[in-house]
């Protein structure tokens, strides 16, 4: 049985066609590798920077239970960052370099984390909307064609559902509370709604990388498709809370069973991406300081490990 010899390249496209995963040591086109590294590292940066807006409220959570839950959620996000940096490393990317690119403002991360968290209700809105939007995207990515990315997504999705529910639970409590508390919840929804819609990326006809990603089965749905799903899933949840989605044109279309809605202000989106959002500079500064201030710990751990190794060697002789 001699299988017809096929080139590495043919083999790669065959695997993609057959819905088989690409694994780290497989041959892959440079464009696929670079697209994957870019997407996974941006995703990793988003998980890490995403801890900052919420970290702002750990010490001010209204009860010990809320504080423990928020801490657990934020700890999960740190883990998500780690899974994703590891996945990027399987492609030959250097983690230090990726982090350096974030710190010098060259690498992108989700624009939503450049908005401030002004009240406790924002922590509810982030869990419900931001993690909700992330879940939409990540559930799709469980089927992405690159094996390590797909496996990271499966782990992440298992953990995400609690994030969204704890957020909604916060808002549910506020909405059943005093008039002021309900207003606080409404204010949070007003501010987070459109930035959440932006999380799915630009409109399909303006999205630069979409075609290739769909063809290579990196993504399975377009930005607009995911955004529509998110709106359809979220609007009834807002109604349940008794909150109003800040969109006068929001309308349910019984025929398509979809909501029509107002697009976010895309000029704001591009402006935030360019670094001009309310918190961009602060986020990067915080990350950079954390990295620099942790350097002595990393160095000390290495020095200790080396000394132990030396001691073990000497002991054995």
């Amino acid at each position, binding site marked *: 049985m001699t*299988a017809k010899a096929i080139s590495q390249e043919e083999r790669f496209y065959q695997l993609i066609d057959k819905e088989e995963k690409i694994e780290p040591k497989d041959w892959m086109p440079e464009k696929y590798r670079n697209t994957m590294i870019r997407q996974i590292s941006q995703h990793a940066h988003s998980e890490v920077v995403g801890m900052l807006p919420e970290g702002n409220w750990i010490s001010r959570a209204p009860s010990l239970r809320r504080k423990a839950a928020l801490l657990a959620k934020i*700890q999960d996000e740190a883990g998500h960052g780690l*899974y994703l940096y*590891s996945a990027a490393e399987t492609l030959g990317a*250097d983690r*230090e370099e990726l982090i350096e690119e974030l710190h010098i403002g060259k690498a992108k991360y989700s624009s939503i984390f450049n908005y401030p968290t002004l009240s406790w209700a924002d922590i509810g809105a982030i869990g419900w909307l931001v993690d909700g939007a992330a879940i939409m995207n990540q559930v799709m990515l469980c089927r992405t064609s690159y094996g390590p990315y797909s496996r990271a997504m499966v782990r992440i999705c298992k*953990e995400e559902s609690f994030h969204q529910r704890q957020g909604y639970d916060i808002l549910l409590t506020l909405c059943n509370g005093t008039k002021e508390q309900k207003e606080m919840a409404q204010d949070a929804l007003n501010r987070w709604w459109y930035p959440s819609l932006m999380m799915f990326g630009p409109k399909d006809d303006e999205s630069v990388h979409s075609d290739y990603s769909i063809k290579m089965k990196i993504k399975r749905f377009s930005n607009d498709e995911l955004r529509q799903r998110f709106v359809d899933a979220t609007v009834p949840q807002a109604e349940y809370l008794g909150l109003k989605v800040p969109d006068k044109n929001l309308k349910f279309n019984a025929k398509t069973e979809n909501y029509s809605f107002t697009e976010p202000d895309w000029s704001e989106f591009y402006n935030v991406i360019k670094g001009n959002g309310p918190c961009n500079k602060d986020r990067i500064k915080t990350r950079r300081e954390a990295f620099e201030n942790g350097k002595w710990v990393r*160095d000390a*751990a290495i020095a*200790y490990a080396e000394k132990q190794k030396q001691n073990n060697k000497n002991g054995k002789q």
Partner: protein
Amino acid sequence: MENSKNWPLWEIFIRSKRGLSHKHVGSLRASDAQMAIENARDVYTRRQEGISIWVIESKNITASDPGEQDSLFDPSGDKPYRHPTFYKLPDELKNI
């Protein structure tokens, strides 16, 4: 960036419960084996996913070459007689 100061990469294997093998769950960075186990505990078993952890430095793993997948695994492809279904036995026979 002093690359020499990077913590090495470790592969993590978790036994989820007694009776099952350790299974690869992912990787992480740690300065030594002990820290790799502690970090793996924090990263991969926050929801009781495991009762035992193995760690091994990634550089110590030797992997087969996917480019040689065909020549490596072909020899088992033409030996159907290794499978029980290869042997067609009369239906009346029981317990075989």
